């Protein structure tokens, strides 16, 4: 039966018919794998999604984690699902064999996890954050830290968090004030308060490993003075068991619009509730070197940003599939030419405006899924491509695409959720149908892990100009290569896309001609909108090329959605590019009093 969680056929198309991920198995890192293992991992993820994650998606929303003044309690279905997930071994599937991982290609791991994200984003967030935490420690932690903290995370015994924001310092990490004081034994004592900490406290794991950004005495001001610390909820004994309670205390939980099953917390460090080791302050250990904390944290944040993009796709995708199913089965009204009120009603999918919404949604979610998987493949390329040039190019492309991978789906797959409600009509606005929850859940993705505004600044302010524009040149080169291959029915689309990416190049130079950050800051969001649409059009041209010579409803659907994107969506950026070319500074210059 076709699932309403994700499309097995689309995932298989993208992995095998477009990205040819089977070719990865010829590389040493992946040689133990085959199509067989990839398919089995996809099937396992689907089974977990259908049997253990989806069934409590609504319950987790209506029964959000409860704070009794001391502890947080989560509905038992979450623990059961996470135990099954840990038991499956998927937590470590993409990690190195030497730490117990399975060296599954990132692209397959990412595709598999969309099942779980679409089925229950709130529950899968606990292990997703933990894996990102483990990856950071594997990259920057000491061998002892890996042994003490990463192994239990991989086994599913410990979960992890990332603690960046503070009540007075959200997007502006330069203003972080949490203190970390070096002790004689080499550990640090931390004092401060952290805000918006997902999975900050719960009863789902033996321990919680917090990665905390803090400032050591005398550190340089701003982000250059931030260091990164491991601060576990319970100190970990030398034999790996959990010992004394650390002074990390839950101050309260935030009540959110969506993602309600993922507890979001305010944590106090070193306020004196506990005195670990008989002293004041939460005990932490330094990761790497002092004052390099933000760079280390970005290792986790970049992964988290691709994960957020994937979550936005998954939620938009499941919303689209629910709307499609509803539209096929909901009889309502008759064709305009049928004036006989006694004739049977038609399913609403027969009405043009409903089809418009469904086709638009399909173009958003399938285009964005392609982008997320392409980004994941770039991670594999970065790690395993045969030449250093190819590895460097993959890293460069991933760098420039990351803000788009995060922000475009957060905006446009949310639009698919909006349409899913609209297709359901009044029912979609009730809590009897799940599409309203998908919308509320997905609304977070434009906010966390760097708002879409931050992503736009990152894109225009840093990514497209870094290394004298090397990232943008690499992107331009890849897109131009796709356009050059577009012939026959696709030639016009190839030309349209080539024109668009050429214009992006010109606009980028214009916006930075005066090296005036006012211009960049005023135009970054519009710029991100335009480049985002160009990148998704590229993903559609690639998909349409992969459909060449193939027949059947699935491939016809791909061609229809691709044509929609080129005919209805890409032209939208023309006026945006005209506006960008003017280097307008309205938003920088506007007097606050006008607002």
């Amino acid at each position, binding site marked *: *039966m076709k699932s309403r969680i994700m499309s097995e056929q689309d995932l298989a198309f993208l992995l095998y018919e477009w990205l040819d991920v089977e070719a990865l198995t010829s590389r040493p890192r992946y040689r*133990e794998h*085959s199509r*067989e*293992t990839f*398919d*089995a*991992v996809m*099937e*396992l993820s689907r*089974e*977990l999604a259908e049997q253990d994650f989806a069934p409590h998606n609504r319950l987790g929303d209506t029964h959000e984690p409860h704070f009794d003044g001391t502890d947080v309690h989560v509905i038992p279905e979450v623990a059961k699902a996470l135990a*099954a997930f840990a*038991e*499956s*071994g*998927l937590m*470590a*599937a993409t990690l190195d064999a030497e730490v117990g991982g*399975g060296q*599954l290609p990132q692209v397959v791991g990412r595709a598999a996890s969309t099942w779980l994200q679409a089925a229950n984003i709130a529950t899968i967030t606990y292990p997703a954050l933990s894996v990102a935490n483990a990856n950071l420690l594997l990259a920057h932690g000491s061998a002892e830290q890996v042994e003490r903290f990463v192994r239990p995370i991989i086994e599913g015994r410990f979960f992890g968090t990332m603690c960046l924001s503070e009540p007075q310092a959200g997007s502006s990490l330069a203003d972080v004030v949490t203190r970390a004081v070096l002790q004689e034994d080499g550990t640090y004592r931390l004092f401060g308060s952290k805000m918006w900490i997902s999975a900050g406290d719960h009863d789902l794991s033996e321990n919680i490993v917090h990665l905390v950004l803090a400032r050591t005495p005398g550190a340089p001001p701003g982000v250059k003075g931030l260091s990164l610390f491991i601060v576990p909820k319970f100190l970990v004994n030398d034999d790996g068991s959990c010992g004394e309670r650390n002074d990390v205390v839950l101050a309260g939980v935030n009540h959110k619009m969506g993602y309600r099953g993922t507890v979001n917390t305010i944590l106090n460090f070193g306020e004196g509730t506990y005195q670990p080791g008989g002293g004041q302050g939460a005990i932490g250990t330094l990761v790497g070197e002092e004052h390099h904390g933000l760079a280390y944290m970005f290792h986790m944040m970049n992964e988290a940003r691709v994960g957020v993009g994937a979550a936005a796709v998954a939620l938009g995708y499941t919303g689209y599939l629910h709307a499609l199913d509803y539209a096929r089965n909901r009889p309502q009204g008759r064709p305009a030419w049928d004036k006989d009120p006694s004739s049977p009603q038609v399913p609403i999918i027969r009405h043009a405006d409903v089809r418009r919404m469904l086709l638009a949604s399909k173009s958003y979610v399938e285009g964005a899924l392609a982008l997320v998987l392409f980004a994941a493949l770039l991670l594999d390329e970065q790690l395993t491509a045969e030449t250093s040039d190819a590895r460097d190019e993959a890293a460069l492309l991933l760098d420039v695409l990351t803000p788009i991978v995060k922000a475009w789906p957060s905006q446009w797959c949310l639009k698919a959720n909006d349409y899913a409600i609209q297709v359901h009509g009044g029912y979609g606005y009730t809590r009897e149908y799940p599409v309203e929850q998908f919308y509320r859940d997905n609304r977070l993705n434009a906010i966390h892990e760097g708002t879409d505004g931050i992503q736009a600044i990152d894109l225009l302010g840093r990514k497209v100009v870094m290394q004298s524009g090397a990232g943008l040149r690499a992107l331009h080169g890849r897109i131009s290569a796709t356009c050059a291959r577009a012939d026959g029915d696709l030639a016009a689309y190839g030309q349209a896309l080539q024109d668009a990416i050429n214009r992006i190049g010109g606009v980028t130079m214009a916006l930075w001609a005066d090296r005036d950050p006012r211009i960049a800051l005023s135009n970054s969001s519009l710029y991100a909108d335009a480049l985002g649409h160009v990148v998704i059009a590229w993903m559609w041209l690639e998909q349409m090329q992969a459909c060449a010579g193939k027949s059947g409803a699935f491939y016809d659907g791909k061609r229809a959605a691709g044509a929609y994107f080129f005919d209805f969506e890409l032209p939208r950026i023309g006026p945006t590019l005209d506006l960008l070319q003017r280097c307008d500074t309205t938003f920088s210059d506007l007097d606050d009093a006008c607002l």
Partner: protein
Amino acid sequence: MKIAVCVKQVPDTWAEKRLRESDRRLDRESADGVLNELDEYAVEEALRLVEAHGGEVTIVSMGPERAAESVRKALSMGADAAIHVSDDGLAGSDALATSLVLARALDGRDFDVVIFGSESTDARMSVVPAMVAERLGWAMLTFAQKVDVDGTTVAIERAGDGETVSVRASMPVVLSVVEKINEPRYPSFKGIMAAKKKPVESLDIASLGLDAAAVGASGAWSEVADFAARPAKAAGTVVTDEGDGGAQVASYLVEQKLI
């Protein structure tokens, strides 16, 4: 203890299934093939028994080439080896022919216990386990909701109508299990990787020494004579309660001979 688990690949349990007009057989291409859900309970029970008592688990399946996917899934749950009987000449086999093939594949391999799911979700006959037991001349313990092994004795609990029946037999035995018996584990990532390297023995009609005329469509003792699509769902009957709603509902139920 040597345990064999007989598994079958069936069309996706929840998919709309179709019969082919041409030969009145199930169109297996019309839906994805999956490991028969009830067989997962059989695999789980076998794994639990060897975890408790030692031994090994062998998966046995009769089916076309694509059934290898389901065999592989059972291996990735933790079974040790598999036997896959595949031959174009087996297409169209009925329960009698299937039991003949399975019994031949199982015979002489020193299995102590053979476990089946209580039925397949496509054919839903529930007779193959009994037929295999009869052909092997082994004891038969069917519809088990609990299994205990003590030495060479296998005891089961079978849920009856209003009572629980306890039955025991000496090995070798053929068991069939119902879904109440356990909660099947998922395959694990490590299991998936390990399954690639586990031995799968391929057999066909000739290697089993069977007469081709005794199996497949030609050897079937039963056939589908005719079939028709399920009638479209009729409009429901609306009862408007004007003080006599209960009586109307009762009358309706009587008319339909439901009470």
